């Protein structure tokens, strides 16, 4: 009930008519580096690695958070942490050993998040503010595709799908009970910035005790299912959830720690497609057709990069073949009537 009330009190944001604030022109002015000349990151910033990383066409990513002096994250709603004013996040994207862009989020005095992206020069000596519209052809990928640095509205299209607007720094993503089968799992950072670290350091307060005592994990029928649901949480759940603007689609792929049911299964497996996307196969009548990955619309859209059909619709130019293979295994192994046989609890924290 408390969570439901919070949901009403803090609805997801709507993209504003005009941007409220502007970001620094250069990355170094955001405070990421102690010494920009040597690219030494300020050691006071915390490195973190979400256990279910977002697929970004194989980019190598590094992430940092900086809390203001004395600032504490309010974790009393485990599904929507509240970050203190002045919190800053950075995410650096590299392809082929070359820094391409660094994205930046900063919580403003009015509570709004400032969104920015910085484009690295070819010699790696400068990183300047990218246009609000983003930048195409920032790096040549495979198959004639190229990496696009997203515009601010595209950043918000995903981030504003959840109340906190922060996607990779959350209860499940920072659980100590990490999924060893998560696609593209990254090595843990040092120090290992997980839930327990944050609580012990006094940087995260209010997190329900069961989540502190027993790190949350997705409870699933198999290791494959756990990894598949986790992948969808990290790559799809920020838009497809029961609180954001797309809730009326009834497709809930985000794992919520306080929720004991598993909507990521019940809203997909055996669930009819409501409105086929352009280019969708007529055979794909169900979101997930148990035992039939080739007839599963969700997988078809994940595997496609035809723009009207592909999922996610932005932020990626190449299908994630590892994830496609994972979901194929999961769907092939599914029981034909999972909605009846598999109404399992979703995240264990007892």
């Amino acid at each position: 009930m408390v969570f439901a009330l919070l949901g009403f009190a803090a609805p997801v944001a709507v993209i504003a008519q005009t941007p409220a604030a502007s970001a620094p022109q250069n990355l170094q002015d955001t405070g990421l580096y102690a010494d920009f000349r040597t690219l030494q990151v300020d050691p006071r910033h915390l490195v973190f690695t979400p256990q279910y990383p977002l697929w970004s066409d194989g980019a190598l990513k590094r992430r940092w958070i900086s809390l203001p002096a004395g600032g504490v994250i309010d974790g009393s709603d485990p599904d929507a942490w509240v970050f203190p004013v002045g919190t800053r996040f950075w995410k650096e994207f590299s392809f082929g050993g070359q820094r391409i862009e660094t994205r930046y989020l900063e919580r403003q005095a009015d509570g709004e998040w400032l969104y920015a992206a910085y484009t690295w020069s070819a010699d790696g000596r400068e990183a300047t503010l990218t246009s609000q519209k983003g930048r195409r052809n920032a790096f040549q990928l495979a198959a004639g595709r190229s990496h696009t640095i997203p515009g601010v509205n595209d950043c918000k299209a995903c981030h504003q799908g959840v109340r906190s607007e922060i996607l990779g720094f959350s209860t499940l993503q920072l659980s100590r009970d990490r999924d060893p089968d998560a696609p593209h799992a990254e090595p843990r950072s040092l120090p290992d910035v997980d839930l327990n670290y944050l609580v012990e350091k006094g940087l995260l307060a209010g997190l329900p005790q069961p989540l502190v005592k027993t790190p949350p994990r997705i409870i699933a029928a198999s290791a494959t299912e756990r990894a598949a649901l986790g992948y969808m949480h990290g790559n799809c759940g920020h838009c497809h959830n029961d609180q954001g603007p797309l809730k009326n689609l009834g497709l809930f792929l985000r794992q919520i720690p306080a929720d004991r049911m598993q909507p990521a299964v019940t809203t997909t497996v055996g669930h009819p497609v409501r409105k086929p996307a352009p280019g969708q196969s007529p055979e794909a009548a169900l979101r997930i057709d148990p035992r039939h990955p080739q007839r599963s619309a969700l997988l078809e859209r994940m595997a496609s990069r035809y723009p009207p059909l592909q999922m996610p619709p932005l932020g990626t130019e190449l299908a994630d073949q590892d994830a496609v293979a994972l979901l194929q295994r999961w769907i092939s192994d599914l029981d034909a009537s999972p909605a009846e046989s598999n109404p399992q609890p979703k995240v264990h924290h007892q």
Partner: protein
Amino acid sequence: MKPRVLLIATAALFAPGIALAQSNPADQQVKRGEYIVTTAGCHDCHTPLMMGPEGPAPDMKRALSGHPEEMKITAPATTTPPWMGAFSPTLTAWSGPWGVSFSANLTPDPETGVLRDFSEQQFIQTMRTGRHLGQGRQILPPMPWQVYGKLTDEDLKAVYAYLRQITPIKNKVPDPIPPAK
């Protein structure tokens, strides 16, 4: 009660009602939406043109219902430089480097209207981002969402309110066609 007093009392009874009808916020919002839709060019692409005695004119019997489903188009137009695009006689199908796009059915038809799954918030997000439902696939040219995205929330809400109460027209607009390889 004298007739004059009765007249005054009657007028007093009805006057607030008249004033209320004139200032009904919902009606005003719809009127505002109609004004924007009419003056901002929505009919130019979403109401098919038909040839009449005075040349092409919007077919208002199909107002805002998008590309007519019976007009079949199966491939992008073939153009030679310097031309890079073409459009159908109805001005509802557009061929260019993006393939072929078809103007959407904006009427509230429950089966074929594009807005049938859109909330008011999603409609605003769509105009702001140029993405279907505000978060999905890109809206194709020549839809000038960049212009309409600069409208205020109030104006976009008015457009949404107007479009949700116009006459529904059943017309299944085809899916876009990819560009020729």
